[in-house]
């Protein structure tokens, strides 16, 4: 260590230098962040929208376009701009603009943590026509079969969620059955070895469907305008 360095060490704290350094660097950092944010904003937005659209089109097979709705004061409204609160309904339409399904999110406890899924409801079939796991920490290779297992995903070609006579709840609860014993359209055929995770999906869908299906059926007209 030479003399110059030693001098620097014993130099008294200079508050002007400190303020200058902090302010200067803070300004520079802010500039850097904002620039990056502005530069990447559009791409990211597009990426995210694509991902969401991909998922929606997957759970509402045949859909070509979508519109997002929210519920405000008990009324279904088209979502203007961005919103982070409340449940969103994604209506999917075919080429001709006809409503073929509504996608919505549901979540519940899985084996390890919360599982978030997106599922599509077809008003014509009165059935769940698609399900996609958005987020799960289920055991890889075991619980995560709910995302990949083909026989399991077959359950969602048409999972019956038709309403009871008074229209305030499901006619038949979505129930979980052991692999290979599915007998009714409202039963969910489980995955061997991943019983808990597949059972969790059944519970999540049952909870969400019994809550949302009566509402969706009542307000289905509102979703029809694209």
């Amino acid at each position: 260590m030479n003399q110059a360095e030693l001098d620097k060490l014993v130099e008294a704290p200079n508050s002007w230098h400190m303020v200058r350094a902090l302010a200067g660097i803070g300004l520079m950092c802010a500039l850097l962040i904002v620039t990056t944010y502005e530069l990447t904003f559009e791409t990211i937005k597009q990426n995210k929208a694509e991902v969401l659209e991909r998922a929606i089109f997957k759970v509402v097979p045949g859909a070509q376009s979508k519109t997002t709705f929210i519920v405000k004061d008990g009324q279904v409204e088209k979502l203007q701009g961005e919103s982070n609160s409340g449940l969103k309904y994604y209506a999917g339409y075919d080429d001709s603009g006809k409503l073929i399904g509504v996608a919505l999110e549901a979540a519940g406890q899985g084996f390890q943590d919360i599982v978030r899924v997106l599922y599509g409801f077809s008003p014509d079939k009165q059935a769940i026509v698609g399900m996609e796991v958005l987020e799960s920490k289920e055991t890889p290779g075991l619980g995560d079969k709910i995302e990949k297992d083909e026989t399991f995903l077959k359950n969602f070609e048409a999972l019956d969620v038709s309403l009871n006579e008074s229209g305030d709840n499901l006619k038949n609860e979505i129930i979980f059955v052991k692999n290979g014993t599915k007998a009714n359209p409202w039963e969910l055929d489980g995955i061997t070895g991943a019983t808990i995770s597949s059972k969790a999906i059944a519970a999540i869908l049952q909870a969400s469907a019994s809550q949302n299906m009566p509402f969706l059926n009542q307000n289905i007209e509102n979703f029809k305008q694209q």
Partner: protein
Amino acid sequence: MNESLSFIFINACLVNNFVLAYFLGICPFLGVSGNIGTASRMGGAVMFVMLVSSMCAYGIHLMLVAIDAPYLQLISYIVVIASTVQLVEMIIKKFSPALFRALGIFLPLITTNCAILGLALFQTNKGYDFIQSLIYALGAGAGFTIALVIMAGIREDLDIADTPKVVRGTAIVLMVAGMLSLTFMGFAGLGG
């Protein structure tokens, strides 16, 4: 989904233990787990700082949403956590010298503890409200303390064990952590 408080607590504490499932706070976990007394004090300090910084993070998040500047999230969290720790250190020093003696040396270490920042980020991502955030912080802190104290107990035993020379040090601690992580897998599915 509106998660129940008991679920949040059990999940953060046991099922998805910050150290053993998320690997958050590994540095102090490896560094300060040699002695049970130290470990439990460190755990207490972390829990305390977690509670405080969780509250701060909740406030900052509200503010950032209000001014629509999500890109400042990380930078403001880290700055606030660092200054909170400083502030807490000063306050404790002034009002409870005994507590300061017990926790003092750990507080600066906590600033760079990723468990604290991780907690703030996770609670924001999960969209917890104020009470949920507090419970989450409490659970995470308790989980961290449990893991740290158990590890300290085991390491005190390993100090007087005939372990092969090549595994001594960090390697054996990681092996123990692996076994603990497997053990905590037994808690999966709890809390629902």
